[in-house]
Each structure stands twice: as structure tokens, then as C-alpha cells.
């Protein structure tokens, strides 16, 4: 005689579920070994190191959007979204040639300042201001300096300027003031 009763459904108990999960978690040491291996390779990967450095810089840049006007008690305006966006583009360009800034700061004139120190006496700051001004200030510890305006939208001149910035930070001399 045919039996029309549905086949019995296997009941999955909590114990079984835990067992199955535990079966996987037993492999945690393996996972850890794999993860540590990945971390080691990430540490030796120049690409990932660059990526992380600039990721942190972009995070610092994002934090500037939380500033309010008069953040320094000298009446300075907070960086505008446009200035932050321009600074973001600058960071992208810097990442391309891996020219690492020292810090990202708000500018007293309203905007974002990206600063560079070097082992020599040469220093530099790139500023993207709220009023649309974009420039690089190359200077040294003797007060010599040069201001170069920068049109971020022109890729060829941007690369030339970044190379000049790199050479300056490597120690090329500025004309005496």
C-alpha cells in the first residue's frame, strides 16, 4: 500500500547548528595563520602601504568638514566643501606619484592646507582656499619663498608642478629673497 504521508522533515536542533559552527571555528588557527600572512604581505606591499597612508590622510581631510567658523579664535572661516573637494583631488594627484604630505590642516584664510617637511631646509604648503585660490608655496627656513598658482583641472601642468615640488623637497635651492 502506498504511503501518502510526507517524508519526515529532519529537525535541525540548536545543538546541531552549534556543532556545525564549531566545526568551522575549529579552523580558527588556520584562519589566523592566513590572516597573519596577509598582514605581513600587506606590510611589505608598497601599494598597500601607500594606500593606507593616503587613506588616513583622506580621513584627516574628512575631519576638517566638522570644523566651525572661528575654529582658531582668530576669526578664521571653516573649510568649505569645495575647498575640501579640491584638497581631495590634490591628495589623489599626490598619491599617484607617492609624494607624501606631512599633515593636512585647516587654513586660516578659509580652506585646506597640505604641508610638506623635508630633511633639508626646504618646506612647502599647498593650499585650496574657500575663495577658489589654489597655490603651492615653496619656502625654506631662511625665509626665501616662491608662490605658484595651480589649476588643478590641467593634468599636464599639475604633474609638472608636482615634480617641481618633489625636487624642491629634495633640496633644490630657491632664489634668495
Amino acid at each position, binding site marked *: 500500500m502506498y504511503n501518502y504521508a510526507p517524508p519526515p522533515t529532519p529537525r535541525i536542533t540548536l545543538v546541531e547548528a552549534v556543532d556545525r559552527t564549531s566545526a568551522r571555528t575549529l579552523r580558527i588557527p588556520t584562519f589566523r595563520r592566513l590572516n597573519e600572512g596577509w598582514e605581513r604581505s600587506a606590510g611589505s606591499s608598497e601599494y598597500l602601504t601607500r594606500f593606507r597612508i593616503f587613506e588616513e590622510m583622506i580621513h584627516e581631510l574628512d575631519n576638517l568638514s566638522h570644523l566651525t567658523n*572661528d575654529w*582658531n*579664535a*582668530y*576669526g*578664521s572661516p571653516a573649510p568649505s566643501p569645495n575647498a575640501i573637494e579640491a584638497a581631495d583631488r590634490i591628495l589623489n594627484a599626490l598619491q599617484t606619484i607617492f609624494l607624501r604630505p*606631512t*599633515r593636512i*590642516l*585647516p*587654513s*586660516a*584664510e578659509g580652506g585646506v*592646507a597640505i*604641508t*610638506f*617637511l623635508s630633511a633639508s631646509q626646504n*618646506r*612647502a*604648503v599647498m593650499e585650496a582656499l574657500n575663495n577658489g*585660490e589654489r*597655490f603651492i*608655496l615653496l*619656502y625654506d*627656513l*631662511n*625665509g*626665501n*619663498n616662491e*608662490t605658484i*598658482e595651480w589649476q588643478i583641472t590641467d593634468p599636464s601642468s599639475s604633474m609638472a608642478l608636482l615634480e617641481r615640488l618633489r625636487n624642491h623637497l629634495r633640496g633644490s635651492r630657491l632664489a634668495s*629673497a
Partner: protein
Amino acid sequence: MKGLEIIFGARDLPLLENQVDTNSAFSDEELLYRRVSTSELTGGELDPSRLNSISFDKEIDGAPSVLRGRFSSPLDAIHVDCAGGKDKSDCLVYFMAVGEIPGPLRSGDGRDLVFPIVHRPLPRCGAHSVIGCCEEGNPEKTYVVPSRKVRNDLRAKLATRLLPITQIFDIATKKPITPSFTP
């Protein structure tokens, strides 16, 4: 004598607007004080990128602020009355002499600009002054807004001339430090 009282710490509050003499001329030796946030320093070094609070506005009252030493002590620079009511007690104080102010600096259009200190007392901060800007030789010293090139030139030079106040002033005793050697 008022200046000496301040230097030797005879008072704790900044002088008020009605306690200072705006007709008193600046000498080249008079010191100027400016507070600097610790976040603006890297390894104790101050440069234009750290000194991100030098700005000029369309009006002279928007020019960079300093306190004139004749009517203030270095600690006034971080006093709430001289910081727009904000607590800036964690800031450092830097100084320079009036004679160290850079200039003349040449602008892109060939004008030579100088930066006279102008005493602009505030109601609760009588020593408040600004670094003005005018064309060299202009007898009326009419304020002009400096170009970007000149502003940056000024910032780069100021950064190398401003020095930490601890070089000449003992914060604990609120007294000037007497050099123990002859340079």
C-alpha cells in the same frame, strides 16, 4: 611704567581698552606676542604651514592680530579676554620684536609694501594690535590688501622670525629670563 608692571607680573588680567594709550608709538625693540596652537607645530617648528592663522581681510581689523608688549604680558595672549572668549590656555605664545617685521616686500604690480603695527584695542584686550599693510612711503599709511604673493612672502618670513616665548620669559615665575651668558 605701566609696561614694566606688566613685564614683572604685577597683574593677572589683560588691560582694558580704557587703560591703554593708543597714541603711544611702537619702538623697534617692543615685543609682539601671538598665540600658536600646539596643533600648528611639528617638532617645535613653526612655519607657514603651521602658522595657519596669518590672514588679511578687506578691512584692517581683519589683519593678523598680535598683542603689543608695552601693554601686555606674554600670558595675555592666551587669556580668555584676548581670545574672543574662548579657552586657549593650551596654546603656546610666540614673540618677535617690531623691528623684525618683514618688509618692504614687492608685489606683482611693482609696489613695495610695508607692514606697520597698528594698535587696535578691544574692549577687554587693550593691547590688541594688527599687522597692517600699506605702500611704502605713503604718509597716511592707507591700508591695502596685499596680493597673494606678498601674503605668502610675509608668512614665510614671519614663520622663521617668530620664536617661542620660553626663550625670554619664565612661565612659572612670570618673569623675564636673564641671559646667563654673553653671546
